[in-house]
């Protein structure tokens, strides 16, 4: 299927990109790796007047590991994150999420910023025009019904980012820039929880950096994911776990972040007592939305949210013991 028509823009630095965005607002879509955007355009889910390729913005590419925080540029390829020895060593769940996101040829193209800001998906929305023409307009297509949940008053489309849960597990922040101003917000604040408009980001704002604070003392982390085919598919359920200990080796934080459990990642925050696996699994199950709108039944995906939470915590604890 051919792509719809558009005008192509290719800024060479952030300032230029921000000016282009400021002038064109909603009519412009940003292309990072293009692996998600081009498919949506091909299906005519979006038909932007302008496509701005940010692939040439070298000033927001790369991993900078500092003493107090690690900064990852929005253009950094998932492959580079998955392969970075330092990310693997310090932020294992993040490296695992990047590795698991897609097959090698896709992670060679896809970027961290693009992965975080990819639109939510639903079986009743991510279809070609031929299929959609035979369906009533749902919330996400400007209608008033939900095709996945009978009588659904809102959109139940699902966050498909692998990177967001892993980054949120580490309490990551992100830098949003627009012409004349910059703001830094917690990554969790970037998600609205609303499937129709899943991101709290202005049309003229560019996500430029992701900042991961350096955890104090010992930390263990892991990312686990359910999908149809081991190498190429979007997550059907996923869990990133983060466990940290005090100087004395006592667990003082235990966090699980669920992906594919709703329109935004779901955070389950706990303290030492909640390292009890079953209670976390139950909370994950309770927190996840089990809707029949991805390739596997919602009830199964919901159960797997609990199972994956358990597996991720277990792996994180094991790594903590190994001193990783």
């Amino acid at each position, binding site marked *: *299927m*051919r*792509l*719809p*028509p*558009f*005008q*192509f823009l*290719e800024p060479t630095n952030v300032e230029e990109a921000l000016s282009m965005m400021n002038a064109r607002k909603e*009519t412009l879509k940003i*292309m990072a*790796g*293009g*692996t998600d955007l*081009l*498919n949506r355009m*091909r299906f005519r889910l979006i*038909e*932007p*007047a*302008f*496509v701005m*390729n940010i*692939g040439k913005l070298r000033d927001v590419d790369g991993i900078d590991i500092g003493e107090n925080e690690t900064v990852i540029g929005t253009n950094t390829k998932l*492959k580079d994150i998955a392969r970075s020895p330092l990310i693997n060593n310090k932020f294992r769940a993040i490296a695992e999420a990047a590795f698991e996101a*897609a*097959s*090698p*040829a*896709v992670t*060679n*193209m896809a970027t961290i910023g693009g992965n975080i800001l990819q639109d939510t998906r639903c079986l009743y929305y991510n279809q070609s025009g031929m299929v959609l023409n035979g369906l009533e307009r749902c919330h996400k297509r400007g209608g008033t019904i939900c095709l996945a949940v009978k009588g659904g008053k809102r959109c139940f489309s699902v966050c498909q980012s692998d990177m967001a849960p892993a980054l949120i597990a580490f309490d990551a922040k992100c830098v949003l820039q627009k012409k004349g101003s910059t703001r830094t917000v917690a990554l969790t604040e970037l998600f609205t929880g609303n499937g129709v408009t899943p991101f709290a980001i202005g049309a003229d704002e560019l996500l430029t950096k992701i900042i991961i604070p350096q955890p104090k003392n010992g930390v263990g982390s892991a990312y686990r994911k359910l999908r149809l085919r*081991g*190498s*190429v598919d979007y997550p059907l359920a996923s869990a990133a776990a983060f466990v940290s200990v005090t100087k004395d080796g006592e667990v003082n934080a235990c966090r699980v972040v669920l992906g594919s459990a709703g329109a935004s990642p779901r955070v389950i925050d706990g303290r030492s007592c909640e390292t009890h696996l079953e209670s976390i699994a139950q909370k994950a199950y309770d927190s996840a939305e089990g809707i029949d709108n991805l390739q596997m039944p919602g009830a199964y995906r919901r159960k797997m949210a609990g199972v994956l939470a358990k597996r991720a915590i277990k792996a994180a604890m094991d790594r903590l013991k190994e001193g990783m």
Partner: protein
Amino acid sequence: MSEMKKTAITLNVNNETHDIIAYPNKTLLEALRDDLRLTGTKESCGEGVCGSCTVLLDGAPVRSCLTLAVAVQGKKITTIEGLRVGEKLHPVQEAFVNHHAIQCGFCSPGMILTAYALLKENPTPTETEIRRAISGNICRCTGYAKIVEAIKSLAEEGK
């Protein structure tokens, strides 16, 4: 609908420079097949899943169906046609032939380029590394065993 203008696009494909005039919505896959007549690169799923359209961009395998031609100017593109050495097949191609790693042949260009990129980066990959590297290249004849054998034979030879 926005007004779209044709633009001059310069592509470096298999060490040759090609100039085409095309709309910006042309994918690299379309440019290779329709403009440059390099039909070794195949289109199958057309949405980045199957790996048939794999080409190398500065040596790394990418999906040409998810790549805009206009966005890869200045990069080195390698297609299956660029692999042969003179009139001879490249050792990776030969290994695929010798190990009967080709059935219908539709996935072969992408599969061979992926194997080539893997061996270039890691001349002695383990079977796990081979399987991971070709995990995004789908063979619907399911001839994976022979494909892995072919790549392994090169890994053992360190070619």
